[in-house]
């Protein structure tokens, strides 16, 4: 056990020398880093034997009571298999800021970063394939942001299509021909070959 504690202590010494701020809660150690130095910090931690990247995830602190500083936090959950130690690295960042990708260290970071991108809209520089992973491609917005509408709100999609709950229910009861409140023209997906929706989105991206 004493060796294990020593590993974490050694790592923490190195990290604090590199500008990290340590915090601890219920035995869980996390170290806060500046956005610019995070890649370096991950490299240090990895060289010390934290060879398993458990997870990468975002937290939106927008409505957290008493929170000050940047809106988002991205946390890296790292684990040293041989020593059985866990360590969290955290970066605070604003909506407009980007992070470097970890796919150079672990190729498995691919899906994790895509999920953060999908759910929070945080981009990762140098990611080989940064696109949405779970939500529909034309869904506008990032569901895990705290300002994403909840309950029975009409959900807007990129192409002008949106899901209107009342119309959706009416369609299910057979009182209305449409299941979605399609905003213009024929509803996508009813007739094959009608690609009006795709054209609209292409114009938008150009």
């Amino acid at each position: 056990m004493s060796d294990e504690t020593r590993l974490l202590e050694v790592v923490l010494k190195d990290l604090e020398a590199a500008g990290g701020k340590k915090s601890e809660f219920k035995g869980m150690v996390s170290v806060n880093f500046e956005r610019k130095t995070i890649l370096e910090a991950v490299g240090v931690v990895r060289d010390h034997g934290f060879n398993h990247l458990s997870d990468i995830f975002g937290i939106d602190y927008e409505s957290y009571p008493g929170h000050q500083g940047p809106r988002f936090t991205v946390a890296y959950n790292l684990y040293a298999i041989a020593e059985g130690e866990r360590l969290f690295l955290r970066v605070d960042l604003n909506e407009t800021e980007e992070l470097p990708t970890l796919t150079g260290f672990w190729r498995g970071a691919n899906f994790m970063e895509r999920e953060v991108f999908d759910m929070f809209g945080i981009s990762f520089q140098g990611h080989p394939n940064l696109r949405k992973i779970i939500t529909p491609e034309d869904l506008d917005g990032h569901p895990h942001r705290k300002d994403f509408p909840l309950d029975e709100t009409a959900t807007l999609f990129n192409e002008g299509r949106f899901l209107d709950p009342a119309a959706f229910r009416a369609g299910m009861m057979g009182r209305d021909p449409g299941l979605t409140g399609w905003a213009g023209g024929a509803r996508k997906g009813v007739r094959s070959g009608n690609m009006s929706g795709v054209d609209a989105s292409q114009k938008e991206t150009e």
Partner: protein
Amino acid sequence: MSIPNTGYDVREISRETTGSFDTRHMRINVGPQHPSTHGVLRLVVDLDGERIARIMPQIGYLHTGFEKTMENRTYQQGVTYSNRMDYLHGFGHDLAYVLSVETLMDAQVPERAQRARVILTELNRIASHLVFLGTGILDMGALTLFFYTMRERERLLDIFELVSGVRMNYGYFRVGGLSTDLPEGFESAVREFISEFPTMMEQYATMFVQNDIFVNRTKGVGVISQDLALDYCLTGPSLRASGVSLDFRKAQPYSGYESYVFDVPTSEEGDAYARFMMRFLEMEQSLAIVKQALDALEPGPIKDPDRRISLPPRHELENSMEAVIFHFKLVTEGFHPPRGEVYVATESARGELGYYLVSDGGSMPYRVKVRVPSLINLQSLEPACVGALFADMVVNIATMDPVMGDVDK
């Protein structure tokens, strides 16, 4: 915000296939409705002749927004959502969730509840591996074993139904203990299963371990080296098949796993055969744990006596005003953990599973992040499949054992 076109999206894929004509690679679509994808997994595969040049999982068909929903429910209500993610190993998800909340609350779980949790989680692990074995070998064309494994799984589901009232989506664990005590007849039902299951395992073994067709289709197929497994963040039995002995029941014991004697089977091969055998051998170990836990199961309390967490006993409501107040507060608004963030890693049937909870001091979690094993393990299809035969892709999907509810959340 527009989506950057850095990779392949569905529109681009269709545009490419219709627009340009690539004679080297053929792009085909597998799923999302295909029996061998174990749910709604969709794969876009580039083929170079019979060999796979590129494999791109397209997921999200089963996205339900469990994390966001749990952020808008009280902590105690969370157990109705956790088990719906991995519907084959629901008790594992329930356990991971309540462990995180209990760490946040400093709850003291009584021994009987701990033992009951271990018994149920391990039996559920066996049930999950039985589905894996049956459907995995079904994908290779061996129909018989499926009926055998489903027969035994049915008996396990009967036990779970006895305990929780439902066959899946149990929601039986509570923060601080269990919802009710184990019912009468539980112990004898489990003992009967324990005594009969080893002979069933022998039957399975004769059906696939020495089966020439099975061995030829899995030995040396989809090899993932130890380095690649760590590179792709693989966990669970698939990682142990590649020679890394990482099992959170041993590495960071929870729920009293340190008091049970069991082995963590590992293999150096890293191929599909090893991944099959890991799960098969794990069932034996799970059975040993269940046996030990059952022998040590003593009558006693099943909930944390702390009134901040557990409901007061029914009889107290009749003559204690204080009990009524606690009952009212817990039912209407739930408890308020201190501000902070916790994560407890557990070993589900598929790999590392943990709930990262952010508490803002309110009665609902501020943020729930589930580290689901299936989603991250799915990436390992790439090292396993690229360069391999298309027919072996089905074997590789089966041995990764993804549950799509666990992938899409």
